[in-house]
């Protein structure tokens, strides 16, 4: 069972702002979804290996060979706020 506190914690982890009423609603919805997902507990998977990659591919590398970087002007074109060819953000406080 997911609680309101869990939802607030997860919202913080996910960096999403929510209003009070949204938190309420998400708690309800996520509870229903998780209850349905609880169906997975019917299965005994103690002896089953997990599948994180569906195809049995291994060892995909690239050689240490230089490729052309993007021109700085192309990079800066995507920037919301920029200064001196860098992305500008509100001050990071350490």
């Amino acid at each position, binding site marked *: 069972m997911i609680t309101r506190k869990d939802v607030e*914690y997860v919202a*913080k*982890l996910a*960096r999403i702002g929510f209003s009070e009423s949204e938190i309420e609603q998400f708690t309800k919805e996520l509870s229903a979804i998780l209850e349905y997902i609880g169906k997975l507990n019917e299965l005994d998977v103690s002896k089953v290996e997990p599948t*994180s*990659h569906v195809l049995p*591919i*291994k*060892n*995909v*590398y*690239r*050689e*240490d*060979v*230089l*490729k*052309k*970087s*993007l021109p*700085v002007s192309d*990079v*800066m074109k*995507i920037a919301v706020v920029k*200064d*001196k*060819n*860098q*992305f*500008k*953000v*509100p*001050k*990071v406080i*350490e």
Partner: protein
Amino acid sequence: MQYETVIGLEVHVHLKTKTKAFCGCSTEYGKEPNSQTCPVCLGLPGSLPVLNKMALELTIKTALALNCTVNNYLKFDRKNYYYPDLPKNYQISQYDMPISSNGFIILTSGKKIRIKRAHLEEDAGKLIHEKDSSLVDYNRSGMPLLEIVSEPDINSPDEAYEYLSKLKLVLQYIGISDCDMEKGSLRCDANISLRKMGAKELGVKTELKNMNSFKAVREALGFEIKRQTEALNNGERIIQDTRLWDDQKEITTSMRSKEEAHDYRYFPEPDLVPFSIENKFIEEIKKEIPELPQMRFERFVKDLQLSEYDANVIIQDKNFADYFEECTRLYKNAKKISNWLCGAVLSELNSRKVDIQELKLKPKDLIGLIEETEKGTVSNLVAKEVLTQIIDTGKSAHAIISEKGMAQVSDEGALEKLADEAIKENPKSVESYKSGKENAIMFLVGQVMKKSGGKANPKVVGEILKRRLI
């Protein structure tokens, strides 16, 4: 109350690859901001990582040099956290299946510091803080970073310092990184806690960051021991937090982070497939590992009869030690070479602030000079002057000696004349010598040397004087 200090170190080192860990952008330092970026290292939507094989090879090489077990199966995981220098807001790292584990470094005292794991991950970009804003440069983003985590086996700031020095030396010997802390290619964080002497359980630890040299690590740890000891003695509790070392004020301060406890939500990186590392591949890399500093030290002491002190000085820099070895191939008296290298040559290096590779004095030049002293062409004193001139001009010892007329005078006729002058001018010394004070002759030798401008062969002068004063 007596406390025991428990320290664990986490070292991050940039691998010397041409390109980044997961894309083909250059790893060169000091380039224009964001000029070495592409969709992958900018973390743009839709981009995908592909592992640089060299980064994997260098990691395995390091792991082997640090006595780690290289694991035959490895995978990458995502470590999720938000920070503006981390463009995807997750870092590709390794969680439960690192490339290697269970290594160690042995300190001079014989104490073993265990290495828990060494794994490969990607670096973040760089933040530049301005008055009201921060600027992000992603040139560093995606650089291959090796994380080396020690077990909490270190019990003093000095041990920490020695561990780091030994670690750095190994990394330099195998040539996987330039280990330049100023450039950020080597960084070190420390975990430190105190516990009552004899206690089994670990105390509450603090994490120290922002140390820009090994010296700073030692000082920060020293400060932290003092701070925690005082707190404990005052009955206070240590708060688990991250503290920044302030090099100017020489104190650590809490980051007072308002962030929730770390919940990195690691999970297997779906964009990279797993890797199985065959033993054959590991063996091939093993063959590329050169002799490591500890082995070299032992060989120098045992086979070349160097003193432990000299051997230790020589191995501290791989280039210096290679230079030494090159000299021993040209001249058999290793001890004499070591005297020259650790004495006159090292002081030249220090005063000129250069590396041995940059010197115009090549091994054959040094050996040439040593041979001139051996032959008696120049005295040791003059030889040092010749050394300086070789370094300045790049000419051979022989050329300098003959051009500048620095050859030692052993011609008895010329020296007898000077000896007679000295005897005449210093009757008192003559008197003492004759009355049995044998040391008095040294003064007379000195006088002759002076008259010859340092070029007289002191051995010959001594013999002449003795003959004259019988």
